[in-house]
């Protein structure tokens, strides 16, 4: 199911980066006095959908983050804390009790109740509704009954309303980090007004979504132009510091960049590649960077004989100068990676691959020859994602440092590449990218490296690794879970089924008219923090 996440990254490498807040205050130009009556203008692309369970790209999710308030948000250590929820508790990691805070109302005046969550999640999980984010509910008991052409049920058996402000979620198997999932867009509630009949979304809801968040819609969604929201006065949570937000729709980032330069737009979430080298001069301290959740790796088809020896894989890793490539090809818009999880999740440790991450051509060559690595290496990638430059650079390094022949092989699309890999055709090493679904180490390990992981394309299978992941999922506390996951990551470091290469980074900028600009874990501007300058 998560193939899309990989694919999205490949198609629009700069548009989908998710990111972590830059801790502390944002804008350097934050000297001006804050103006609570002003609106700010933020760049987005045309959202695909504005229904929580159908929104899985960053533009739609940015708009929804204004209209809805999540159950949990993440603190500076990337751990979840309650926002719209009063408490989220479980004794066995299987049955979770979610208590809602009192006082929340939808923008049409409806009181937010447990039923609103249950209805919205049932709608999202029901396969015939074709919701893009429905797989977020797959851990909930009864999900399978809602799948297929004619599902046998239309509500999740794992969702039970207890009273107006309490409901329970039963998972099909224990999962210690369920709470961390709940900060995602898919888990917002829907008002009664969103449905024209039970389980049927009202026509036109998407054009002016009604949420329970700090902002409400001002008018309707003006396609290809803008979505405007204004402060919702009855919002009981943390108040935003601006009167409204105009999400302005751009087709090309370069246009948005020109607007930021001339103060016609306040925030651009991704500086276009062609402007990266000049952004620091153009914007000064209004150009900012923060770590993002994406991880770029080179994967080995471990089922192929020539790559089955871990020493071969280690040697190749040691022959790559990551710093050189991030500097010369990516102009420091990405960071060298030496771990299997991104720095944006709790439990991240630097340099878990150890010696395999040290650039050492002499050692690499000796190890490579001793292990009998192949004399010709192919690096496969998708030709539509702007990967040619770094693949070629990596190839040149391998040629020079290992004395092997190396060629890059472009497949038209990432899906074509995956089809070949799945059919076990000899494509050589291939590139992969990963964008997390929710901030958890498990999300970086389970789908990618467990024996039956949905995106395990390299044929990696390690029973001990699988066991550690299962123990992590049923661990009594988050901290214990993290310990198990870290032990699992250490196993990966020994086997090295993929070589971590680079972490993504948010490269954003803002105009002189705003301050305290922060971009959060899901590549959204933090709308509660941003301030307009008088």
């Amino acid at each position, binding site marked *: 199911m998560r193939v899309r996440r990989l694919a999205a990254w490949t198609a629009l490498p700069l548009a989908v980066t998710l990111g972590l807040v830059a801790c502390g205050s944002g804008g350097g130009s934050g000297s001006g006095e804050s103006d609570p009556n002003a609106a700010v203008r933020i760049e987005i692309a045309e959202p695909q959908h504005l229904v929580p369970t159908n929104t899985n790209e960053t533009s739609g999710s940015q708009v929804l983050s204004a209209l809805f308030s999540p159950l949990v948000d993440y603190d500076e250590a990337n751990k979840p804390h309650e926002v719209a929820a009063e408490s989220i508790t479980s004794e066995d990691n299987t049955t979770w009790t979610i208590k809602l805070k009192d006082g929340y109302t939808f923008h049409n005046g409806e009181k937010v109740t447990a039923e609103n969550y249950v209805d919205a999640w049932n709608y999202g999980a029901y396969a015939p509704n074709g919701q893009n984010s429905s797989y977020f509910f797959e851990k909930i008991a009864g999900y399978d009954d809602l799948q297929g*052409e004619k599902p046998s049920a239309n509500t999740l058996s794992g969702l039970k309303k207890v009273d107006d402000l309490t409901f329970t979620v039963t998972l099909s198997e224990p999962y210690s980090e369920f709470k961390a999932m709940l900060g995602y867009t898919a888990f917002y509630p829907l008002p009664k007004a969103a449905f024209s009949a039970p389980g049927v979304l009202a026509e036109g809801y998407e054009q002016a979504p009604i949420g329970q968040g700090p902002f409400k819609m001002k008018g309707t969604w003006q396609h290809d132009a*803008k979505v405007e929201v204004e402060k919702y006065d009855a919002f009981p949570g943390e108040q935003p510091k601006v009167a409204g937000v105009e999400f302005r729709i751009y087709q090309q980032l370069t246009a948005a960049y020109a607007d930021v*330069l001339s103060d016609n737009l306040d925030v651009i979430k991704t500086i276009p590649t062609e402007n990266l080298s000049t952004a620091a001069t153009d914007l000064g301290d209004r150009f900012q960077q923060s770590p993002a959740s994406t991880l770029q790796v080179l994967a080995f088809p471990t089922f192929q004989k020539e790559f089955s020896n871990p020493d071969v894989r280690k040697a190749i890793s040691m022959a790559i100068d990551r710093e050189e490539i991030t500097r010369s090809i990516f102009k420091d818009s990405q960071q060298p990676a030496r771990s299997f999880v991104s720095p944006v999740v709790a439990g991240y440790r630097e340099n878990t691959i150890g010696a395999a991450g040290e650039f050492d051509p002499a050692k690499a060559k000796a190890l490579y020859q001793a292990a009998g690595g192949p004399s010709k290496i192919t690096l496969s990638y998708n030709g539509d994602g702007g990967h040619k430059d770094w693949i070629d650079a990596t190839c040149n390094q391998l040629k020079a440092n290992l004395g092997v022949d190396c060629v890059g092989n472009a497949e038209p699309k990432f899906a074509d590449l995956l089809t070949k890999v799945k059919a076990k055709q000899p494509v050589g090493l291939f590139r992969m990218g990963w964008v997390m679904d929710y901030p958890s180490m498990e999300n970086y390990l389970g789908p990618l490296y467990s024996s039956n992981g949905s995106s395990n394309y390299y044929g990696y299978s390690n029973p001990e690794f699988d066991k550690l992941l299962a123990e992590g999922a049923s661990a009594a506390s988050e901290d214990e879970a993290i310990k198990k996951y870290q032990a699992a990551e250490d196993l990966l470091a020994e086997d090295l089924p993929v070589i971590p290469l680079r972490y993504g980074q948010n490269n954003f900028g803002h105009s002189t008219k705003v301050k305290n600009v922060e971009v959060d874990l899901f590549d959204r501007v933090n709308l509660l923090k941003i301030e307009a300058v008088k």
Partner: protein
Amino acid sequence: MFRFIVRRLLQMVVAFFGTTLIVYALMFAGQGDPIQALAGERPVTAAQRAYLTEKYHLDATGIGGFFYRYFDYISNLLRGNLGESLTGRSIGDILADAWPVTIKLALIAIAVAVIFGVTAGVLAGIRRASIFDNATLLLTLLVLGIPTIVLAPLAQYFLGVKWQLFPPTSGANPDFYALLLPGIVLGSLSLATALRLTRTSVAENLRADYVRTARSKGLPRRRVISVHVLRNSLIPVITFLGVEVGNLMSGAIITEGVFNIPGVGFNLFRGIRTEDGPLVVGIVSVLVVVYLVSNLVVDILYAVLDPRIRYE
């Protein structure tokens, strides 16, 4: 004349089917899994798969199935139903939103080309080999040599960002002033071509026998140029501008993208970028009709402008 128009209309029908068939085939037939192609790179659930199979008649396979689907699409198209984009918006609505701004932009571009291009062309033609003539030659060569993809961002950077003479982007519901810069950029290529065409045509006609006759009859120079020379010289220019209008109506992918104008080209580009097959095919089908009609109008204009040009 009537027979000519009828014959052209019949040709248009053939051209319409030919081009839409090619576009449809390129977008959908070459893909291994047409359902996956329809859904882009998103995962397709079993339920979506069944829904799309039914909606697009994918149960019929092979060449026969392809033509079945194509004719189904065309019959919807002829009834004015352009279908829905993958995000569920009606393509008819998208085009209705996009066209007004594209047409405004095209009109500005054409006006720029006519006002500056034709005037300067006439002057250059009259004062052949003067400094003005040589200067315009150099300038137009420069403009023709710079692709829009370079010209548009440069104009935006210098005139919009650096010197702040124009708004750097137009955005939704732009006013005339906001569209002026993109209009000039878009029109500059037509301007240069129109200028060269007018200049050559005027210079040539000035040496024609009928001009010498008019002069020897003692007509004032102004009258010779404005009545005799100009009318004859504008025929190729108007033909060119007619075709250009058709071109501009189909939207300018680059210019609309650079200046963030939500017109037809902007939507077409989005369709291509997000692999929205139905959106691309829908827009292109309509553009085919626009091109065919504008070409027909140009052909008819030939006859209207120059009575010597007769169709049979």
